[in-house]
């Protein structure tokens, strides 16, 4: 479970986050929706331990991120909006590095990485240096590294933007499976469609504050499979 309590963050004169509190329960997919500059990425970067808050507490599966960062980060996966990598490593080497840092079973995590890469359409490029990757491929690799260890808490910052339709569908299904297995997922986007179809609850951020929280019943969108266009594309991909 992910608990964010009274998080505030200021960049110079601008208050990016203003006393934000929210909880994502185990097995829940919570969407973070807001316009550009609403504070979504700041909130997720703070929750991921990439940058500290000015005040407030982050708890990852019961671990205080400020007090026990290593333990907390072991239980966390983070797919960044603008992912950074060791550019001169291959995707395979980067994933092996992440697996090593997280102390995962090498053989099991290698198999999982290959399976995930296959489903995201990245398998053919695993042995190429990351620096040659397109934006979409970088996002896929970041997502893959974030879910490699099947974390109990997953943070996705505009994670699926840049994915092709087939990979996006596979990633959404994976997110559903993970939450079904008990993962708490916080998923930010400024594209309402992704959140409508994926999340159980939506937190609307506005100028660094939680403006509103909506349950799925409020927008009534069913959590169903691909759209007609996505179905056409999937059919094409399957044929070829």
């Amino acid at each position, binding site marked *: 479970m992910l608990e964010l309590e009274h998080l505030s963050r200021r960049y110079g004169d601008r208050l990016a986050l203003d006393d934000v509190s929210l909880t994502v329960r185990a097995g829940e997919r919570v969407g973070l929706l807001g316009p550009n500059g609403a504070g979504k990425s700041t909130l997720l970067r703070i929750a*991921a*331990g*990439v*940058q*500290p808050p000015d005040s407030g507490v982050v708890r990852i599966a019961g671990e205080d991120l400020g007090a026990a*960062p*290593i*333990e907390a*980060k*072991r239980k*966390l996966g*983070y797919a*960044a909006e603008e*992912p*950074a*990598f*060791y*550019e*001169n*490593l*291959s995707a*395979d*080497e980067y*994933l*092996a*590095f*992440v*697996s*090593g*840092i*997280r*102390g*995962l*079973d*090498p*053989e099991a*995590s*290698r198999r999982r990485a290959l399976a995930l890469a296959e489903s995201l359409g990245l398998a053919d490029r695993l*042995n*190429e*240096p990351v*620096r*040659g990757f397109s934006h979409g491929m970088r996002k896929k690799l970041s997502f893959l590294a974030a879910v490699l260890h099947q974390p109990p808490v997953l943070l996705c910052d505009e994670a699926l933007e840049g994915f092709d339709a087939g990979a996006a569908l596979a990633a959404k299904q994976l997110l559903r499976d993970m939450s079904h297995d008990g993962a708490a997922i916080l998923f930010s986007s400024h594209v309402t469609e992704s959140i409508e179809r994926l999340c159980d609850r939506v937190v609307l951020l506005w100028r660094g504050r939680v403006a509103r929280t909506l349950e799925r019943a409020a927008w009534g969108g069913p959590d169903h499979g691909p759209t007609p266009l996505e179905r056409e594309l999937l059919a094409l991909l399957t044929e070829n």
Partner: protein
Amino acid sequence: MVSSSLPSAAFRRLEVAWLRRAAARLEPALWVELIAIALLASAFLFWQAHVRLASFAHDRGPAAASLGLAVYLTLIALAGGAQAGARHWARLRERDGAPPWRALPIPDPLLSAHLVRLSSLQASWLVVPAAALLIAAAGVLPAPWLAALGAGFLAAGFLLTRFACALALSAAAWRSEGAEARLHGALARALSSASRGRTSRRLRAASWRRMRAWVALWRNDARLAWRVPEIRRRLFLATAAMALSWLAWRLPGAENAAHIVAFATSLFAAATVAEWLIAVIGADPADVLRHLPIGLGAAWGARIMWALLASGALLAGHALAAHSLPPPVLRFFLTWIALSSLAITTLGVNYGVSLYPRTQQAQRLLTLSLGLSMAASLMIPLMGWIVLLTAVLHSLRRVARWRSAEER
């Protein structure tokens, strides 16, 4: 119609903002330290130069002393030119293909002048030793001569940095292919062909192993040492410097001074290893390290392991090269080398970690600290050790700043 003065004014504003930003990235305490080190180094230079110039002027007259001073100032200006040229080359080659801002309607001469100014700024720190030399000559040489030498230094510095940048541009543009060469100017060719050689190639499959975090980082460093050109260059330099220090024992006709040369070159080798380590640490992408469960101990420990390995290699090479020395002398010499090399490389690691991700500042602080240690040693025997160990301990206290690196 848009006036051509508008973009140049915009560039000036950009450069001022860039300078402000660069200054703000260094916290006040570090500024104080840098200024203190610069003042101490200047005081040393002043102390060394003043007596020599006075004695030279007394023996051979002020004209000869002025000529000597002019030679030193020219050497400093040449060093500035070399640094600016190297930076300009790196600036032109550091991107993959043409940068997106080439789409802006900026005339090439303006853009070129802007990039040259940025590269030349790197050499501006050399004004400090030049000023120290000029101040040292005050009272020894007539004031108008000093003013002329100062103006001459500034003019030479300006011309040499521009000349070196022009050479760097020509060299960068020269690499571009035929059709492009005919169609575009040098700047367009240099920028559009930058790093074109780094096309994607398939690498060997990674070995997936269970390992501790510091080992994973250490293995990563080993890979990047070969793959990142900047780090590879520094590694070659460090290896060459180590080999040079071993070869010092075989210097023809300098048997009596071999141990001094070997020690001096081993200090230089340790410094190049320290610079390599700073570059290695600086290559860590902050956002990757921040969200992964990597602690300060792992980040520091992986690099200290490199420092230990490099010091060990340096030591082993000297043990082999100087095996003909009497055992007590050899032991003394090796202890001296081991301690100095370990201190210098540890200092590099500490600066790299504590100032991460500001690699350039870390390199600069290392140069200044080692320069000050050398100066202190020349002034008072063994004083350099005190300065060096103080720097190591002081920097060790600051390594915890690595955790707040994202704030910079």
